[in-house]
């Protein structure tokens, strides 16, 4: 523990840590802001994943990103899972801890996808209750991530940005602004991404995500953008990211690449691009 760098995550670029890059990251000692991991992949009792993660954590700050808590589920949170998250936070001292505005468990089953929520007063109350419980048990401020969605619900009455702002107001949690999710949802539902961002409660944003997406078509031949994290960041997402950073100020920016993971230099190249963008934002603010 004593050999670790400080947990604080700088307003720099980081990347999602992939096992195929462990070796090279330890050998190259890249100049990078931080790494982020999906919490559930490090919930085994022991073994190589923990050995690698500890070695990376000694050299770099870490962000812990949960993908399985199901904060938006109607059913109660899984208390065993909350305890596992708490144990990971205590073990690795992540600088940031985040989860999704989504649900993924129903009844006894884990459905292994981040499923969309109807935005109603009932859902709002449930999400706030679960965010409170998470922050209390894990003992850390939670960052809640805006989702990428392919459908909407007839019963929704609250715009997503207002919904998120209200969760922040009621629970004191922060937000993880996923720029690519904004592009994906805006394209899929036919609204303006810049307008969404203008309404986003940016004061609560402590981290930004950028990931690749794939473009298909829906039944009506409208573009249907799939958030597959399987390619380089799209120029539209970079532009929106520059706009967001202009409003928010410098913040940690994470590159997500989970499918068709490239060689390390390609992924690191995306991070350097984000670092250049952050420098431009700083210069613009200073001017």
């Amino acid at each position, binding site marked *: 523990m004593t050999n670790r760098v400080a947990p604080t995550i700088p307003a720099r670029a980081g990347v999602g840590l*992939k*096992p*195929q890059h*462990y*070796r090279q990251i*330890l050998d190259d000692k890249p100049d990078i802001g931080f790494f982020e*991991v*999906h*919490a*559930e*992949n490090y919930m085994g009792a022991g*073994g*190589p*994943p923990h*050995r*690698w993660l500890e*070695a990376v954590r000694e050299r770099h700050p870490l962000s812990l*990103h949960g*993908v*399985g808590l199901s904060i938006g589920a109607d059913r109660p949170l899984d208390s065993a899972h909350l305890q596992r998250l708490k144990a990971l936070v205590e073990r690795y001292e992540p600088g940031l801890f985040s989860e*999704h505005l989504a649900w993924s468990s129903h009844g006894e089953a884990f459905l292994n*996808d*981040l499923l969309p929520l109807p935005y109603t007063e009932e859902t709002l109350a449930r999400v706030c209750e679960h965010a409170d419980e998470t922050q209390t048990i894990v003992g850390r401020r939670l960052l809640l991530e805006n989702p*990428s969605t392919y459908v909407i619900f007839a019963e929704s009455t609250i715009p997503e940005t207002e919904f998120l702002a209200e969760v922040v107001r009621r629970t004191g949690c922060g937000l993880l602004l996923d720029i690519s999710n904004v592009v994906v949802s805006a394209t899929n539902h036919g609204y303006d991404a810049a307008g969404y961002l203008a309404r986003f409660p940016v004061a609560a944003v402590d981290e930004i995500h950028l*990931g690749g997406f*794939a473009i*298909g*078509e829906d039944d009506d031949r409208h573009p*249907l953008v*799939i*958030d*597959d*994290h*399987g390619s380089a960041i799209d120029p539209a997402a970079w532009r929106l990211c520059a706009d967001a950073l202009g409003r928010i100020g410098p913040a940690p920016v994470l590159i*997500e690449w*989970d*499918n*068709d993971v490239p060689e390390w230099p390609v992924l690191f190249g995306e991070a350097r691009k984000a670092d250049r963008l952050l420098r431009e934002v700083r210069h613009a603010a200073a001017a």
Partner: protein
Amino acid sequence: MNRRSANIALASSLLAAFALMSVPATAQDSGKEKCFGVALKGQNDCAAGAGTTCAGTSKVDYQGNAWKYVPKGTCTTMKLPGDRMGSLEALARDVPKA
């Protein structure tokens, strides 16, 4: 053999077994790869699956009808010889003599 002499035989065979253990089971790993272990891909992530638009649309594809498939991997060269398709008799016949 009565119980007492059986015990003596056991004790001496255990002693003999321990006496034969010369190599202590200490980690003699060299190199970092062995020290950290295999870097297996994590299974949980927050991305949509690759090629997601079409794979889920076909009901047949989604449900999977394995009855129409025949195993066609390396098992085609790993066939059990003769008629010994895992019956209990074959098993008994295959137990090596002690």
